[in-house]
């Protein structure tokens, strides 16, 4: 490992260093603002250091990590999401009694894990990244340890994630046993020579379990609504974006390098998972009156849509997945962002009824929430529409008609619950004073406001003029 390798790894190193730095700062003095400042500056520097790595890409750093334009693109996306989550978390934590500052340590650690995940093309780094991500998230979910719900959700996630990791490791071991390699490309090369798949299929099946848990796809989705509901809202936003995004990026790389989709059973399994996720996610969301659970089910459906693009294969698939993820990131962060800033000391704004007449009380927040929900529903003028367009283009291009039809049906069902929420916001104001008083009119902290404004602009900009992003993705993502 030489200087060039270190430069290529700069984004990862800087981010990891930020976590350490926060701990050091905390040992000197606990000031929430300072910790936030260190986190933000650190994450932004990490983002800037991507520029240092760009000229070196693609570069294999040790056998574990590959720094190519693909990893670097996702580094940028994950870091940006982490910045937004920190900004949203600040005012949320300010209102709470717990120690606030360690939150950022866990957040940054989890981000590092997700970054390792997207840069890995080796089983060891995959597992390493996944565990670092998961450990950060356990702590984050149960962060408000005085609320019983949060602890319950944290334990639930801990047990299930542990079990799913075990499946994953066992699957990896089986594949390693058959191929004698843990490097994606090398395994694929072995397999193309070896006609006997042997233990590879059982191994992949076990891995699907582990991966499916992290992605919260049907039938591994049962934890999602509880954890989404129990976790503090900024953390929910983090799980929905960074954790899932990192895993999807890894899966895409694995599929591409391992050529796993050439194996009939795996293709079929993922097609069934995609269909089940799109249908179950959207149908279950119909029954929800709790917006965090509603978004949980909707995120299950969205991963199903992403899988449609992924299964399409070919050059457009990777681009479609990436574009869809960017659109999903901005829309989801915006939706959870509004839920976060409306939550107050005593409770979170998680009931749909809490939003009644919001448009006439907090027009900007309601407008942003409307835009983000329309984006999640895939209505034009928003990023989500272009994402859906990419996915449909990929699916139709590969003649995956069954998947595309389910996607269309799922989107139509999805409209219903997104619109139900929008309708409530535009509904009549409650008449009695008691209902009026909640959510309490509280000033929006500037930082969160900035983050939300940036998200709103991104959603609309990507929806109206996506040429920049689509050009960047085309340049970064190998076909």
């Amino acid at each position, binding site marked *: 490992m030489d200087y060039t390798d270190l430069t290529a790894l700069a984004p990862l190193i800087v981010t990891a260093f930020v976590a350490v730095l926060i701990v050091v700062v905390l040992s000197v003095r606990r000031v929430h603002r300072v910790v936030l400042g260190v986190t933000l500056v650190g994450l932004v520097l990490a983002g800037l250091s991507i520029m240092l790595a760009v000229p070196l890409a693609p570069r294999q750093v040790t056998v574990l990590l590959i720094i190519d334009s693909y990893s670097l693109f996702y580094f940028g996306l994950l870091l940006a999401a982490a910045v937004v989550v920190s900004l949203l978390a600040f005012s949320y934590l300010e209102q709470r009694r717990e120690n606030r500052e360690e939150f950022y340590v866990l957040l940054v650690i989890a981000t590092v894990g997700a970054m390792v995940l997207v840069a890995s093309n080796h089983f060891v780094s995959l597992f390493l990244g996944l565990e670092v991500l998961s450990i950060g998230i356990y702590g984050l979910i149960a962060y408000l340890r005085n609320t019983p719900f949060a602890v319950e959700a944290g334990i639930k996630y801990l047990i299930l994630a542990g079990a799913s990791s075990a499946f994953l490791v066992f699957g990896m071991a089986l594949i390693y046993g058959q191929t004698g390699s843990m490097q994606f490309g090398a395994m694929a090369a072995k397999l193309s020579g070896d006609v006997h798949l042997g233990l590879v299929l059982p191994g992949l099946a076990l891995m699907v379990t582990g991966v499916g848990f992290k992605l919260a796809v049907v039938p591994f989705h049962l934890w999602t609504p509880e954890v989404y509901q129990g976790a503090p809202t900024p953390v929910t936003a983090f799980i929905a974006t960074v954790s899932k995004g990192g895993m999807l990026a890894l899966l895409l790389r694995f599929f591409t390098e391992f050529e796993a989709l050439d194996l009939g059973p795996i293709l079929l399994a993922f097609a069934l998972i995609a269909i089940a996720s799109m249908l179950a996610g959207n149908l279950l969301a119909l029954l929800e009156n709790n917006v965090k659970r509603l978004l949980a089910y909707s995120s299950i459906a969205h991963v199903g849509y992403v899988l449609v693009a992924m299964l399409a294969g070919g050059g457009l698939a990777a681009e479609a997945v990436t574009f869809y993820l960017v659109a999903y990131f901005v829309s989801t962060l915006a939706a959870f962002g509004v839920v976060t800033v409306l939550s107050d000391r005593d409770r979170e704004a998680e009931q749909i009824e809490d939003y009644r007449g919001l448009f006439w009380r907090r027009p900007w927040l309601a407008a942003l929430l409307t835009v983000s929900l329309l984006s999640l529903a895939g209505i034009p*003028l928003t990023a989500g529409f272009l994402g859906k367009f990419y996915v*449909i283009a990929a699916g139709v291009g590969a003649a995956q008609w069954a998947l595309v039809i389910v996607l*269309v049906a799922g989107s*139509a069902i999805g409209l219903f619950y997104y619109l139900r929420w929008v*309708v409530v916001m535009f*509904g009549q104001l409650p008449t009695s004073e008691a209902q009026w008083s909640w959510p309490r009119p509280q000033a929006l902290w500037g930082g969160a406001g900035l983050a939300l404004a940036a998200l709103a602009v991104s959603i609309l900009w990507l929806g109206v*003029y996506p040429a920049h992003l689509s050009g960047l993705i085309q340049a970064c993502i190998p076909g």
Partner: protein
Amino acid sequence: MILVWLIVILLVGGLLAWLLAGLAPSAARWISLLAIVVDLALALTLWQPSAVDVSTTGVWIAEVSAAWIPRFGIGLHLGIDGLSLLMVLLTLFIGILSVACSWTEIDKRVGFFHFNLMWVLAGVVGVFLALDLFLLYFFWELMLVPMYFLIGIWGHERRVYAAIKFFIFTQLSGLLMLVAIVGLVWIHHRATGQLTFDYTELLDTETTGTTGMLLMLGFFIAFAVKLPAVPFHTWLPDAHSQAPTAGSVILAALLLKTGAYGLIRFVVPLFPEAASTFAPVGMSLGVIGILYGAIMAFTQTDLKRLIAYTSVSHLGFVLLGVFAWNHLALQGVVMQMICHGLSTAALFIIAGAIYERTHTRDLDRLGGLWATVPRMGALGLFFAMASLGLPGLGNFVAEILVLIGVYKVSIALTVLATIGLVAATIYSLWLVHRTFHGPNERKWSLPDINRREALVLWVLVIGLVGLGLYPQPVLDAAEPALAHVLEPFKNR
């Protein structure tokens, strides 16, 4: 560039109306009115006095094209020919009327109302101008969201149900169209190696057999839902009856026409083979719509629902005419799109005026209004006559042209469709009878139409009489466009 301005003025006008409504509610109304009038003036500059020879000037009166999403060969391609120009003029004209007819009806959230109104209009104009299929879908959806708000916020008692139903029907069918668009583009890509969403390029795509039929159906369903064709019509009575007056007017006069326009501009030219195979089914659906709409209209007790079902019936003529696909029938379709727009808008405005005064749309509670509002009654009778196709008024010209055109294709369907005209007489007179005639049991005593309403309605009267007596300018204007779409069918 003028085409871009046509849309931008509406969008910006809507934003300004919303922002400035804080100063005074009437500011939103005046700004909207001004923006639409300017737009209308701009569109009128494109009007060509007489039929021009397409071979020398090209089909498009004006055209603008720029790259938008180069990754997929999507361009910002707008074009206007006689047919689109007529539709744009109708849109802006109806736009003025809908601002005028909500002048006193809408007193809450005036700014946001006008924002939505203007953006619907922008979406509709965009659909009439789009020559890129992606752009078409974009505008198709752009008119959906504001319309949803118009119904959902300012509508009547079951507005949320109606708004969501409207949205889901249109969105689901729209997504099918999007899938069909992408499918068509990939087929074109495979054949030529060129990835493009441009309408003029895609026209040459060979679409045959089952694939062609499936793609055609994707387009057809989207437009048939908007039109609406039976059995895709069930959203319409709810949406029309629950929307505020301006919403009903725009829905009936404009949004339905985007479906008709889509059939003429996209479905048949893009899929000539599949469309001619499908024609008997399409025409039968048209006739079923005519008769079913008429029967349903007759059985309604809600004034606005009754008018809504007359739309189903009248738009059946459009479907019938489009799939007959000959010159006379298409001329009739164009006339029907315009005249139905005017007459139904007028009926909804009258229904809105009655509702504003009585707060009911229930025909059982109305009746005998002629004595108290004689001028409104007379105008109502006039528009009912227009709707039933009285000779001398525009709708007659339209329906007779369609019938003559269809006669060449299928005599049986012509006969059945003509029965629809008889039914139209019954429900139109029934409408007048239940509203204005009979005993005034509820002892209604209402103010007659005011100057603003009178102005709006008299403009429509003049329009319908004018179109009925001298329809030639409209036919001339549409001529090059119709000749162009009929061109490939000459040798069949």
